[in-house]
Each structure stands twice: as C-alpha cells, then as structure tokens.
C-alpha cells in the first residue's frame, strides 16, 4: 500500500440475513448473487477490493440495489461489515472503539445524503454548525465557521431559514455545507443530486466541480447516472449485485469495457466526449508537426482530425511529448465505429 492511499478495502463482504458471519465462514466466494439469495441472505457488498488515493474522486456507479450505497456506508462504518478489512489512512476502522469512531467522523469525514438528511427543527446555520456543536466547539467559533461555509455554498442571506422553507437545490447546498463544516479529509456523497430536477442537477454539478477544484478533497461519489459519473470522475467503479464489475478511468471504461454489463452501459455514450487524446497516445509511434494537448477530448479535436492528413499526430502533456495518436483510431472513436 502506498502512502497516498486513503481508503483501502480488501475482500469486503456485507451480508444481510439471520447469521451473516456464520454464513460467510462457510466460504460462499464462488456463489453467485442468486445462490446467496436462495440461501436466505442478501449480498449487499460481495467480495469488493478497492482503493481510493488522496485527492482522487472515485465515482461508484450502479443501478438501485447494486450495493453502491451499502459500500459507501461500510467505508464510514455506518454499516458493520461481515468480512474483509477496511483501512482508512492505514487504520483498520473495524477495530476502532465507539469513541475512536466518533472522533474519526468528527474530524476526518463528511457525508452528503440523497434526501439531504437535514434536521427539520434547526435553521440553516444551526444545521451547518451541527457537527461542530457535536464536537463541543464554542458557540462563537462554530457560528463563524458555519457562516463561512454557508457563504462558500452560496446561501448567504438564508442563514436563519428552516429547511422546509428552502428549495431542493438549496437544501442540498445546506447538506453540502454541513458536510464541509469540519473540513473533512474524506468526503462521501451518496447520490447527492438524484433528488433534484435535471436543470438544477447540472447547476449543482458545476458548483460541486468548482468546490472540488478549490478544496481538493478525497471523494467517494455515488450515482446511478452514468453521464454524471463521466462528468465528475477520476475513476469509476461500476457495481452490480454487490460486486464491482470494473474500476477504471472513464476513457478506459468506454474504450475497453471489462464485462458485457459494462459494455451495455457504455453503448449509448458519445465516446468522443469522454475519450482524451492522452489515452490514445502510443509510445511506439512518433508523429510530426504541431502536437495536440493530452487533456483535449476527441470531440474537441474533431475538426482537426477530419481536416488533418497526418497518419499519426503527436500528443504532449504539460509541454512534454508523451507519444502520438493514430488518426484512424481517433476518427473511429469520433464516428462511433467499434
């Protein structure tokens, strides 16, 4: 494990049923989700191993019931796992005492919920200050900090409102502000924008990207919306029936789906928007002429690709040549040919 790994989980199982630990001891590794179900257990999380690095945004993607929410709740020990280990910054969280766990959450973790999870009897400011109050900060400091975060999420002037007096988007801003109040290192977001209208969702995603550019947190983001995942993620983990089908960068998932299930997801996607020049760049070949930027998407390069006549176009990242892309291959991505 490198020092940069923040969350590391190995062979994590979360079973629901009468005697999950006893059942797991019988080694159901080979069993499929249906087999386990026939035995009277539900596999919320099935043998998942995954790592999250510092400053990375991992998006966990899956349909409802795929276990993505369960998995993220295992990371923060809102669920007790049945088997495997989860380490947060090198510490096995299952071995923490109740007080240690509370301290971990009070100082390191923040979480945003799908239906906001706001306390109805508290004002915006009191909701945001809630985690600070729980850790015993004095009234003055927590008020100051809460005002700061409220301003950060653009709710200035609404500090004294109660949640029910706000729109859905505004309520989720409160949820985000609350999760940021303690300046967490790790930020969990459980389908934060699913309950919002499409237009507001888009706006909140922009807002979220703006915040992340500023704060640079380690993020685990849950969504069932593949477009959202592609838009935000450094890496995407696609889950089905409690297991991770594939975990990779958006480009690689789109270009090389690991399973049939993942391929079906990527089918409808406009690959040209997702795939970047850097991914297509090959070491072996060297192109000539003006290079293109590695972080440009194929769609952005469309005009150039169509009009250019070179077979290989050099690609550079931060002014350094990293290889060249095969124009034919790039054009295939652009027109959606397999």
């Amino acid at each position, binding site marked *: 494990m490198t020092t940069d790994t923040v969350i590391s989980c190995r062979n994590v199982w979360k079973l629901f049923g009468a005697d999950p630990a006893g059942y797991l001891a019988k080694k159901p590794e080979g069993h499929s989700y249906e087999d386990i179900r026939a035995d009277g257990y539900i596999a919320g999380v099935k043998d998942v191993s995954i790592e999250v690095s510092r400053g990375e945004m991992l998006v966990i993607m899956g349909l409802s019931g795929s276990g993505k929410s369960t998995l993220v*709740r295992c990371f*923060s020990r*809102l669920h007790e796992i049945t088997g495997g280990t989860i380490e947060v910054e090198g510490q096995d969280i299952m071995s923490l005492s109740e007080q240690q766990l*509370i*301290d971990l*959450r*009070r*100082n390191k*973790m*923040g*979480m945003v*919920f*799908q*239906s*906001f*999870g*706001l*306390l*109805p*009897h*508290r*004002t915006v400011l009191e909701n945001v200050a*809630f*985690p600070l*109050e*729980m*850790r015993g900060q004095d009234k003055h400091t927590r008020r100051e900090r809460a005002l700061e975060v409220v301003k950060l999420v653009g709710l200035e*002037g609404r*500090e*004294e*409102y*109660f949640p*029910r*007096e706000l729109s859905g988007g505004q309520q989720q801003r409160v*949820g985000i502000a*609350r*999760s940021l109040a*303690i300046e967490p290192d790790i930020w*969990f977001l459980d389908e934060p924008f699913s309950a919002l209208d499409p237009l507001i969702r888009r706006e909140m995603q922009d807002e979220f990207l703006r915040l992340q550019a500023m704060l640079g947190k380690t993020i685990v983001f849950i969504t069932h919306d593949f477009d959202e995942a592609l838009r935000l993620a450094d890496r995407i983990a696609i889950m089905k029936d409690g297991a991770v089908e594939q975990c990779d960068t958006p480009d690689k998932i789109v270009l090389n789906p690991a399973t049939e299930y993942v391929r079906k997801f990527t089918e409808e996607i406009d690959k040209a928007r997702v795939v970047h020049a850097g991914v297509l760049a090959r070491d072996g070949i060297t192109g000539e002429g003006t290079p293109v930027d590695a972080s440009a998407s194929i769609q952005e390069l469309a005009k150039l690709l169509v009009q250019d006549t070179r077979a290989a176009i050099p690609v550079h990242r931060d002014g350094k040549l990293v290889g060249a892309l095969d124009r034919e291959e790039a054009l295939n991505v652009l027109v959606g040919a397999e």
Partner: protein
Amino acid sequence: MASITVDENMQGGVGFSRQRLAGILVFVAVVMTILQYTGLLPSVLHRLPESAIPPFATWLDAMFNFVKDDLGLLALTRFLTEGLQWILDVTANLLFGKRRWPNIGPIPWTAIAAVAGVIGYYLGGWRLALLGAGTFIWTALIGQWKIAMETMSVLVVAAPLAFVIGLGAGILAWKYSAFNRAIKPILSVLQTLPFFTYLLPAVIFFKVGPTAGAVATTIYAIPPMVLMTTLGLQKVSPEVVEAGHMSGCTRWQLLRHVYLPSARTEILVGVNQVIMLCLAMVVLTAFIGMPGLGAKLLAMMGSFKLGRSFEIGVTIVLLAVMLDRLSKAWVVKQPEHFERGTPWWKRHATSLIALGAFVFFCILAQFVEVAAEIGRKQNFSQGKEIDTAIKTFLAFDPVQNTTNAMRYVLNVWILNPFRDFLLSIPTSAFILLVIAFALWLGGKRPAIYAAIFFSLVALSGWWDRSVITLYSVISAVSLALLIGVPIGILAARSDTWSRRVLLACDTAQTFPSFIYLIPAIMLFGITATSVVMSILIFAMVPLTRYTIEGLRTVPVEMTEAADMAGATRMQKLWKVQLPLALPTMAVGFNQAIMFAFFMVIIAAFIGTQDLGQELQRTLAGTDLGKNFVLGLCVALMALTFDLTIMKWASDKKAALGLDD
C-alpha cells in the same frame, strides 16, 4: 405475517374451513340452549355452581397484601404521596388559593384568561385567542372558577407527569425490543380496564383526595404517550440518523438532538392525547371524592338539577375543546425564521406580551376586586332558569309522549327481551358462540383468546352481571350502527358535509365521556333507557367518523372505474365503496365497542345491574381483590372484541391491498 400462515395451516391441517367450524360451534350452542329450555341440559353446563368458582378475589387480595405490606410497596407509595401532595398543594395554592406554601395564590382569573388568549393567538390567530380567553372568561363569569381550578390544579400536575413517564417508557420500548414486547400486552389491558379499577388502588396506595386522583389520572393517560413516542422514533428517516452519526454524535447526542426533535409531530400528538385523557379522567375522579368540576356535576345530576348540570357540562366541553385545539395547533405549528438582525424583543414578542398581560392583570386585581375574583352574587349563572326551562319543555305533552313512547318501545319490546334472552343462554353455549364469532371473523388466534378470556369471566363468578354489561354494549352499539352509519354514508356524499360532520365528530370525541350522560338524563331521567342512550350517543361518534373516512378514502380510480362501468349510485355504493371502506369502518366499530364498554361502567352511577354497579360499590371499601376481578372481567370481554375485529380489519386491508 406469522399469524396469517397459522391460519393457512389451520385451514389446510384440520380439514375444513374456519367458517364451517364456526358454523358447527354455533349449531352446538343452539342445541345446548334448546336443551336448556326443555330442561334437559345438566345444570353445570348452564351456570357454573358456586362451589366450582375459584376464590380469585381472595387470592388477589392475598397477593396485593403481600406486595403492599411484606414487600413494602405501601411504604414506598406513601413516601411518593408526600412529594406529590407537596406539588399538588403548590398548584392548588396558585390556582385557587389553598392555604399552603407558597401562599401567593390565587392567581387572578383575568391574568390566566389573558395568558390563554396570548397563547391562543400565537398558536392559531384570533380564533384560538378567542377560544383560549373566552373559555376562562365564561368559567369565571358563570361562577365556576374555583371548582374549575380545583380540576385544573390536578390536571397541570398529572399531564406533565404522564408525559414524562410515557416518553421515558416509549424511548425504552423503542430501544429495547424485549421491553417493548413486555409492555405491549400490559398497555392494551390498561387501555381496556374500566376506570373504576384505576381508582381503588390509587385510593389505597395514595390516600383519598387529589393525590389518588392525580395518580389514577396519570396512569390512565400514559399508554397513548408510550405508543406515540415509539411510533415517532421508529419513523425518523434513516438518512437523518446517518447524518447524525456522520456528524459524530454520541448516543445521547443522537437521541437528544436528532431522534427526539425529528419525532416532534408524533410526540406532540401524544401530548394532545395525554391532555385529553387526563381531562376525561380527572372529571371522573369525582367518584373517589376528588373535588372539582366532576364532583359538582355528579352532585347536580344526582339531585336532578339539570340547569346547573348543563352549565358545568358547557364549562367542561369548553375546556376540552380549548385544550384540544390549542395542543393540536401546537402540533402543526412549524418554526419560522426571523430575518437576520431582528432585535431580541421582537424574537420573543409573544412571551413578553404574555408576561406583560399577566403582570398587568395581577396588579390590577390588587385594586379592582372583580378582576381578581367573581363573587358569589356577581356571577351570571342561570342554573335555576335553565332548569325550569328544560323541565317545562320536557313536561309538554308531545315531548313527554315521545320520550315515554321511545322508552316504552325500547324497554319493553327490545331491550328487556334481549337481555332476558342473553341471560337464558347457558354459560357454556354462550362461550361457544363467542368463540365461533372470533373464529369466523379473526381466525384461530382470536378464537383461542376468546375461549380463554370468556372462560375466565365465567370462572370469576360474575357471569350474570358480565352478560348484562355485554347486553348494554351490544344493544347500544347496534342501535348506534343503525343511526351512525347511515349518517356517515349520507355525509360522505358531499365534501362540505363530510367536513362538517367530521368536525362535529372530532369535537364530540374531545368531550370527556361523563358529558354524554347529561343529554340522556335530561331526556329520559334516571332510568335504564338513559344508560343505553348515553352509550348510544357516545358510540355513534366513532362509527359515523370512520364510515365517512372509509368512504372518502376509497381510491378515486376505483369510483371512476365504477362510474365508467355505468354503475348507479346505489350499485357504486354497495359494490365498490362499502366493500373497500369496510376495513376502516371496522376500526370505527371496534372503537365504538371500546367506548361502549367504557361508558357502560360510568353509567353505573345512574343505576344499573351490571359489573359497573358492583365496581362502584367496591370504591367505598378496601376490597382490592374484588375490584380487580370485576375490572378484569370488563377488560377481558373488551379485549376479545378488540383482538378479533382488529385482526379482521388488518387481514381484510392486506387482502384488498390497502395500507394503513
């Protein structure tokens, strides 16, 4: 779920359906009854011989004495009495000037009325302000301030006590399922136990007077608070709880800052029920000599002073409606924000105005005597005049003829023959009939309970009186069905009328049960008809209410589908609406029966020959054992109906795919 599978097993396993089994039981019962009429039935099967009846009362007495003296419970309760007595003395001093510490009362009536007005305004605008202040102004002007405050002084102690205990028990029941399982049956017995059964132990353990009254009232009001607390805590959204966890709450912080505030609505509904039950009970503590509105009403009705009874009735009703409306307004009142920079006095305007009005009237009362107290000769009571008016009205020939005719028809043609018929059924056959009823409606489990419960009633040695109690309940509820259900069906046809009738029912349900005796006694005097009449009115309220609710909540698509299928109004009612409304109506029917069991015991005061009469008699002595045996007879009969009907309603609801 478990009970449903039991039913299926039974149906498959025994070989015939429960309907057929119920039919067989009815047949056996009929044969036994016929045998009895022809004198062929062995007398053991008709009535249990005295010698076969176990001395439950003596056993219970021995047990009570053991707990009371040997385990030292009496010492403990007498110790608690001291503390309770002290608190009650304080409220008594403040509200009606009893000469005890702190010796500053009584608070002037104008001050209390003003504060009630401000609170009413804060919770619900001018209408509630008028109701709050108006109730107290009426009470003072009509000359009932002192007795009303005697009642209130117990209420303001009992209600918070019941709230705290209920909340605590509710939290425990939610946290520890074992505790929940343990108290569930105790709560349901407590809710069906007749109130006389609360009174005697209260007197024995907590001395006659306000202390016993407060204890009985408190215990009576606890069960709904427990249930509402548990319900509210279970309903808190899991995400809010997780948000609490992620904010780093300790267990205590989670309960205090997340669970309890989020369950606010249910807890406040519980508070509303606590207040209403406390008021209903505190009026009834008149039977153990608690002074106040109830005692006065009891005395006035006893001596047939209808005018004063009426006035006291109005006071009690006003108090009930006020407390109900104010506490309900509190339930729906949501916090509203103040703009930033609102000055301190503006944020607390309501409290400041209330305080200001209170102080102003307290000072005013020092100088203007009427503001402090309305004297004996100054009140506006029209007791005598109303009395004369009512009695003149009743003496009119057409009125008298009508009431007499109704009384005659009811008594001679319906009630007495029905009672004699029920009494003529052999005990064993009667029990079989009840089992058949429970089996047919509820299935195996209610049938087993019915068998056990009614056998216990038979063994108690109070069979005849139990049957008479049951007869009053059945006949009154049947009559209430004939009147209440059609009213409900008619009202449900239009939105306006549904709303009006529901409002009337809601208001009527807040009245303490004692009130229902007043119109019955006015019309029919102190007779057996009055008993049935008062139960009838009391039981009609839930029947009408749930009929409307059942019919109104039939999904619109279904009535629309019926309309499109070309159903006439009648066809729609009989084929679509009523079948779908039936489970909800059954809940109303069940409540009507529970209310009837409650009322029939109170009506003992008019003079009945049932369990209530005996129960009331035990209050004079220290016969705890007998008191409990009688009380349990009532509770066991009521529980049999409760279990059976509610089981049927929930089965039916599940079968129709309607959820609660």
